[in-house]
């Protein structure tokens, strides 16, 4: 297709062409346009908008290192491995579903049968160089063992610092202090969802 | 005390510099620069004479020299 054909091709059904402002044909129209723009006072609208914002003083700055943003439950950051609330043992049963479903092939687990002839996860690691944070692992996990955390400050010397089992598993002292947060489910609403989002039509 | 002679000597010196420039330069832009020096030197002379004789004619001359530059 040459360029001319390309320009003349029929695309009326697919596109809406925005004509934009009409170009002035002669000097008189250009003059009219200038006068209209000058006298309409559009410029003062701009001035008023910024002044209004200044008077309203509705500051949206987050002083980052001092204050941190609260992440919603849908936020998909570095993974966490949770513990059972009753016993404190790991929730992961080593089923291997997450390893299977991972589209980036970044989860790797090693399991063995322990002394009580129960399946035990000996090694669990995620390669965060490959992970695309799709969230399938958390979605597929039958035990809600692997979940996405809200930790977004991922500065470290190595990527592997987040990806080993002992990094992701809730530490025992945090667990004993009852600070392990239950994962509300993948795709759950955020805490203030009712304030920010309208209710479903049937509710009113 | 500065007398008219001082100014005239200065005018002469500046004029000499301008003439050296006119003769030395071959670049057109540089020639223009040199001619500006000449005109300015003469301007100082006119204004000095006009001041020391209490007469405005010199100043008027200097005033009329100035628009020659943009014309060029």
């Amino acid at each position: 297709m040459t360029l001319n054909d390309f320009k003349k091709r029929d695309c009326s059904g697919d596109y809406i062409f925005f004509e934009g402002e009409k170009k002035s044909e002669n000097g008189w129209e250009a003059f009219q346009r200038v006068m209209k723009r000058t006298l309409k006072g559009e410029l003062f609208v701009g001035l008023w908008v910024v002044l209004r914002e200044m008077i309203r003083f509705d500051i949206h700055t987050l002083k980052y290192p001092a204050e941190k943003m609260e992440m919603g439950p849908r936020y998909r950051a570095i993974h966490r491995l949770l513990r059972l609330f009753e016993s404190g043992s790991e929730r992961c049963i080593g089923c291997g579903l997450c390893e299977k479903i991972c589209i980036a092939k970044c989860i790797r687990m090693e399991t063995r049968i322990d002394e009580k002839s129960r399946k035990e996860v000996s090694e669990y690691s995620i390669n965060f160089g490959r992970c695309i944070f799709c969230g399938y692992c958390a979605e597929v996990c039958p035990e809600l063992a692997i979940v996405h955390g809200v930790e977004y400050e991922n500065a470290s010397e190595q990527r592997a610092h987040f990806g080993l089992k002992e990094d992701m598993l809730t530490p025992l002292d945090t667990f004993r202090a009852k600070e392990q947060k239950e994962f509300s489910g993948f795709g759950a609403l955020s805490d203030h969802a009712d304030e920010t989002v309208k209710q479903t039509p049937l509710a009113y | 005390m500065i007398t008219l002679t001082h100014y005239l000597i200065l005018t002469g010196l500046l004029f000499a510099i301008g003439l050296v420039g006119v003769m030395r330069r071959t670049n057109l832009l540089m020639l223009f620069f040199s001619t500006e020096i000449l005109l300015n030197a003469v301007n100082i002379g006119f204004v000095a004479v006009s001041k020391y004789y209490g007469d405005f004619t010199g100043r008027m001359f200097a005033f009329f020299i100035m628009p020659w530059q943009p014309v060029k």
Partner: protein
Amino acid sequence: MYETVAFYIFSILTLGMFGIVVMSKNALYAMSALAGGMIFISGFFFILDAEFLGVVQIVVYSGAIMALYAFGMMFFDTTRDVSEKMRSKKIAYTLSILSAILIVAILCIPLVSESIEASYPAIENVGNIQMVGLILFTKYLVPFELAAIMLLVAMISGIVLASKKMDEHLAIEEDECEMLKEGK
């Protein structure tokens, strides 16, 4: 006393600046030195009680003209030196010094002849600008108008010279199509 000091300072600065203009090989040095020299010359005008001329000097020379020159200079590479061919050095220098002496002599004639009288003596209690205006629009009205007409002629000729190609519109779109076609 202060007048003397100011005179000498300005003389040295002006001479030095114009010396650089004439001697420097670099066009940018020459231009900036010339601009500096112009401003120092306006200093002389201020010393000589011709404030209006001094200000006009700053506005016209340093402001407008030099900017025009600078704009012209942007088409050259200012970081390179200007090539100068010096033919007969001695003749040039002798001639210029001789003519300078001639100029001084011409300017000194009123000093020798005592019979000169001010045709427009400065009036007491009338400001500098009023005086300039009075004389400009009485005796020198015709030269003033002539200067204005001259400027107008120069401006029109400049526009005509520059705008010869203005009506040829750019046919970019068709050319572009052709080029793209050939490319394919």
